[in-house]
C-alpha cells in the first residue's frame, strides 16, 4: 500500500481538483439553464451554457471590485482565501486509486480539521464586509455547523472503526472484500448529507442563500468572489471524493485500474449530489437541527455501536 508518491503530485493535485470542479460546475450550469430556458436546441448551445461558470469567473476577475463602507478588508481576504486552501489541504489525504499525496497516519482527523477551517472561512467572509445580509449568512453557517457536524464526525469515525485505523489508505484496504457503504449504510447516508452541508451546497445552501442576495458571498466582488465561490466548488468536489475511500471501496474493483475506479465512483457521487439539489428546496437549519439531534445523531451512534461489536468479534 505505502507506495511513494512523486513530488510533482503536489502540483497536480490542485490542478486536478480545479479541472473536476470546473467540469462539475459546467454540468450544473447546463441543468440550471435547462430549467430556465427549456431544453437546449443544439450541441453548440449546450457548450455555451456549460461554459457559463468559467465566463462568470473571468468577468469577476476583470470587474471593478466594490467595497462596503467600514469593511474589515484583511478579515474578508483571509476568509475568502481560506476556503480554497482548506479544500486543497483536505484533499492531500485523498487517494487516487491507492496513492495519495500524503497518507498521514491520522488522515481522517486531518480531513475533518481542514473541513472545520471552512467554518472560519465562511464566518470571516460574512462578518468582514460590515453588511447585514452577509453577516446573517455567516451566522447561518455556524448554525449549520452545529446541525451537521456531530453526526458527521460519528459517521467518519465509524469508517475508521471498521478499518481499525485513522489512515485513509488502511480504510481503503479494509474494503477489499466488502464496501463499507454496504454494511454501514446509515453512516454513508449521513456522510453524504454532511458532504453537501460542509460545502454549503444543495439543500444546505442557506448560508449563501438567494433570499440573502448571496448570503456570506453577498458583498464579495472581483478576485475575492472567484476565490470564495470557486473554493466552495472545490470543497464540494473534495467532500464528495472523500466518500469514495471512506465508504465506496476507494480504488477496489474488477478489471479497471485503481485510479479509474476512484474517478468513476467520484463522478457517480458528484452527479448524485447535483441531481439531489434540483429535487429539494433549501433546508432551514432550525428545522434540520431537530432532525440531526433527535434522529441522525442517535442513528450514527447506533451504527458505530454495531460496527464496534462486529470489529470486536472478528
Amino acid at each position, binding site marked *: 500500500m505505502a507506495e511513494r508518491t512523486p513530488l510533482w503530485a503536489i502540483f497536480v493535485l490542485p490542478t486536478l481538483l480545479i479541472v473536476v470542479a470546473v467540469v462539475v460546475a459546467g454540468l450544473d450550469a447546463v441543468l440550471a439553464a435547462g430549467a430556465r430556458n427549456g431544453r437546449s436546441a443544439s450541441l453548440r448551445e449546450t457548450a455555451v451554457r456549460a461554459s457559463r461558470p468559467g465566463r462568470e469567473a473571468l468577468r469577476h476577475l476583470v470587474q471593478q471590485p466594490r467595497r462596503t463602507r467600514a469593511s474589515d478588508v484583511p478579515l474578508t481576504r483571509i476568509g475568502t482565501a481560506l476556503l480554497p486552501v482548506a479544500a486543497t489541504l483536505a484533499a492531500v489525504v485523498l487517494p487516487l486509486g491507492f496513492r495519495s499525496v500524503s497518507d498521514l497516519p491520522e488522515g481522517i482527523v486531518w480531513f475533518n480539521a481542514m473541513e472545520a477551517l471552512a467554518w472560519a472561512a465562511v464566518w470571516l467572509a460574512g462578518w468582514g464586509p460590515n453588511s447585514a445580509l452577509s453577516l446573517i449568512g455567516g451566522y447561518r453557517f455556524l448554525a449549520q455547523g452545529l446541525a451537521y457536524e456531530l453526526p458527521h464526525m460519528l459517521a467518519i469515525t465509524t469508517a475508521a472503526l471498521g478499518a481499525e485505523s485513522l489512515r485513509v489508505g488502511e480504510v481503503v484496504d479494509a474494503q477489499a472484500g466488502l464496501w463499507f457503504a454496504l454494511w454501514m449504510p446509515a453512516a454513508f447516508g449521513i456522510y453524504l448529507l454532511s458532504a453537501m452541508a460542509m460545502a454549503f451546497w444543495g439543500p444546505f445552501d442557506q448560508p449563501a442563500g*438567494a*433570499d440573502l442576495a448571496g448570503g456570506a458571498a453577498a458583498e464579495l466582488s472581483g478576485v475575492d468572489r472567484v476565490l470564495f465561490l470557486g473554493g466552495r466548488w472545490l470543497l464540494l468536489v473534495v467532500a464528495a471524493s472523500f466518500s469514495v475511500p471512506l465508504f465506496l471501496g476507494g480504488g477496489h474493483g474488477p478489471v479497471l485500474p485503481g485510479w479509474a475506479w476512484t474517478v468513476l465512483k467520484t463522478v457517480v457521487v458528484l452527479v448524485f449530489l447535483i441531481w439531489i439539489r*434540483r429535487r429539494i*428546496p433549501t433546508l432551514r437549519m432550525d428545522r434540520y437541527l431537530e432532525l440531526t439531534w433527535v434522529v441522525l445523531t442517535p442513528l450514527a451512534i447506533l451504527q458505530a455501536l454495531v460496527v464496534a461489536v462486529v470489529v470486536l468479534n472478528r
Partner: protein
Amino acid sequence: MADRADDRDELRLDRLHIPLGPALADWPSGLVLRLTLQGDIVQEATVEQVPTPPSPQPPFWNEPFLHAAAGERIPKGDAARRLCAAHLDSLARFFAVAGWADMAARAGYVRDRALTGDAAAELSSLVRPLIRRAERSRTLRWLTAGLGPLPAEQARRHGVTGPALIADGDAHDRMLVWLDAVGWNAAAVDGVEVLDAAQVVGPRGHVLGAVPGSRALLDVLPGLLGGAEFACARIIVASLDPDLDELTHVSAAGMVHG
C-alpha cells in the same frame, strides 16, 4: 445603528435596523420593509412603499379584469391566461425564496410560455409536472408549513379577497391555492366566452373593491412577520406577494374620476 432590547428569551441583545427592498432579488418591486432584527429574528416590521408617481397604466396582472369591469368584451381565455401567468410569477418568487432554484426557474419558464400564447393542451402539459412536484414535496411542506398563519376571519377583517383568503392558512396553504389556480386556468386559456363583468377576481383579489387587493395584503404583513426568522420572513412576504402596481394605479383612478 445598533441599540439593545429584550429578545424573546429575555436576553438583552443588540437590535439591528435594516431596510429590505425596494430592490432585492425575488422581492415585490417597490416594497420596503423596515425590520428590527435581533440576530436573524424579526422583532418589528413596518411596511413602506417607494413613492412613485401615479400611473395611468393599468397594473399588468389586472389588465384583462379591469377592462372587463369597464365593460369591454374580454374572452375568458385571456383572463385565465393572465391569471395563470400571474400565479406562476408569484410561485417563481416563492420557490426562489424557499431555495428551490430549479423549480423557480421552471415556473418562470412556464410563465413566459403562458404569456407568449401556448395553447391549453401544451400549457397544461408544462404545468402538470410542476404542480405535481410542488404538491408532493414533503420537504417543501416541512419547510413552509406553519409560517405566517392567516386565518380567513383575520384576512376578511383586513379586506383580503384573493388566494390568501381562500387559503385560510399558512404559507404552504397559500402556495397550494396558487398551484390549484394555475392548474385549472392553464386548462382554460382557450376559452372564448365573454368574461362576466360582475364577478371579476384578479390574481390578488377583487379588482374593484374599496381597497385594492395588494393594499390589504400589505396591511396584514407586519402582523405576520413579528418573531419570524429572516428566511421565514422572506417566505411569508413571497407567499402573500403583494403587487405594488395595483396601488399606484388606484390612486391614479382616484385622481381621474374624482
